[in-house]
């Protein structure tokens, strides 16, 4: 299928470049096309605004600023918090969304907290009831990758609710495809050559890739924090599964596992993964 069959738009969002693509047979009406993009980007922006660690007034920041107190949160933030807690529990805490303190200390995330915070904790430090959540200890939650993945899932659900059947969203490398699209995917190897390699074709599936690297740069400011003393092997790890939030979260889990344990973990979540060494 050629890319001429798609209509695409891109915005800077979620700290990266987000592309929304729709099969052009969905509608030929320009106003309807604009409406689809408006709805998709608004959904992405909603999640970005709620779960930004960088913005002092985001829902996530309100939680991080109020250790030990019950905080009312929007349902989307509660949902992602619950998913993060669940993934932590199901991955023996290899997925850990309570490492914000480490990232603040490493100056990867901003420090807008007047209180003393712990560098990290575990999923046990998060409690959720109805429309509220509480941090039992003064940890700092960072939802970054899975929030980005959830934003993709959420925006595609919004498009589907409007009747769109075939679309995809690529948010800085986290991709999800729905409907009658076979989307060829390359993988960026950010190394000395910034080269691409063909990876797969996606159909009704989500894919996320993480690069495990000792070298951090301005263009690649993210960091995988290991709180269990595991030396992650440098390279690229891509995970394909049904939901984008889970694909992103699992890249971190599998990155911190030895190769002989990855398959079992991926199988537990009905996921596939592809690794390659950095070059």
């Amino acid at each position, binding site marked *: *299928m*050629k*890319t*001429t069959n798609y209509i*695409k*738009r*891109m*915005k*800077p*969002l979620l*700290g*990266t*470049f987000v592309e929304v693509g729709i099969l052009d047979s969905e509608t030929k009406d*320009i*106003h309807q096309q*604009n409406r689809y993009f408006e709805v998709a980007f608004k959904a992405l922006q909603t999640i970005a605004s709620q779960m930004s660690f960088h913005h002092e007034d985001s829902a996530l920041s309100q939680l991080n600023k109020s250790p030990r107190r019950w905080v009312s949160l929007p349902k989307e933030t509660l949902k992602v918090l619950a998913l993060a807690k669940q993934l932590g529990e199901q991955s023996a805490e290899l997925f850990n969304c309570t490492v914000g303190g480490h990232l603040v200390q490493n100056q990867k995330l901003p420090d807008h907290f007047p209180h003393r915070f712990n560098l990290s904790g575990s999923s046990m430090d998060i409690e959720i009831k109805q429309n509220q959540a509480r941090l039992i200890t003064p940890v700092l939650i960072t939802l970054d990758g899975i929030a*980005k993945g959830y934003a993709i899932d959420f925006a595609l659900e919004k498009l589907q609710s409007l009747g769109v059947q075939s679309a*995809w969203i*690529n948010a*800085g*490398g*986290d*991709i999800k495809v729905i409907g009658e699209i076979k*989307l*060829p*995917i*390359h*993988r*960026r*190897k*950010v190394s*000395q*050559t*910034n*080269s*691409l*390699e*063909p*990876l*797969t*074709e*996606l*159909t*009704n*599936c989500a*894919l996320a*890739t993480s*690069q495990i690297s000792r070298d951090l740069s301005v*263009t*690649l*400011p*993210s960091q995988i924090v290991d709180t269990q003393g595991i030396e992650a092997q440098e390279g*690229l790890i*891509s995970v*394909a*599964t*049904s939901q984008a939030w889970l694909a992103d979260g699992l890249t971190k889990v599998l990155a911190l596992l030895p190769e002989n344990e990855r398959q079992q973990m991926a199988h537990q979540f009905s996921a*596939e993964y*592809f690794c*390659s060494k950095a070059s």
Partner: protein
Amino acid sequence: MKSIAPLFLLPVAAITCPAYGIQYLSVQQAQTALYPQANQFTENFIELTATQKEQIESISDVRQRWKQQKTWKAYKGDEFLGWFIVDKVIGKHEFITYAAAISAQGEILNIEIMDYRETYGGEVNEASWKSHFKGVDKNSPLELEQDIPNISGATLSCRNVTNGVKRLLALYEVALKP
């Protein structure tokens, strides 16, 4: 979940620095996307003096590279809706063109990427794969400036565009503010 097949066995040949680009929106399309209610855009290209460039850099802490900034005034009838500005920033290696809508009060209303480019140090030279790309069939030589492929990889920061927007807000203060 449907099964996906990794394609690690495709033959790979290095090609020097292919540049991929995609135009998402023309100026007119971007105007419609950012100001759907507007029925008129008045061209208002700004020629910045050396002093104004220095002021912009001082306010935003971002370099103003060029003297001319392409701006338009958006109107619905006689009502002034805001400014439409086309700008460029350096991405990872190439220029990214984007459009910003700034209200009469100097607030960012919306941003759209118009043209995005990336350069790569290596590429797959494989006929069946190339056939996915716009304007290329299996008999075509690989050309530059094709539609950008769908890429999964470590997330690239959009900080360059964020800095560009900071500079446009300074431009508003220095040259557009009534």
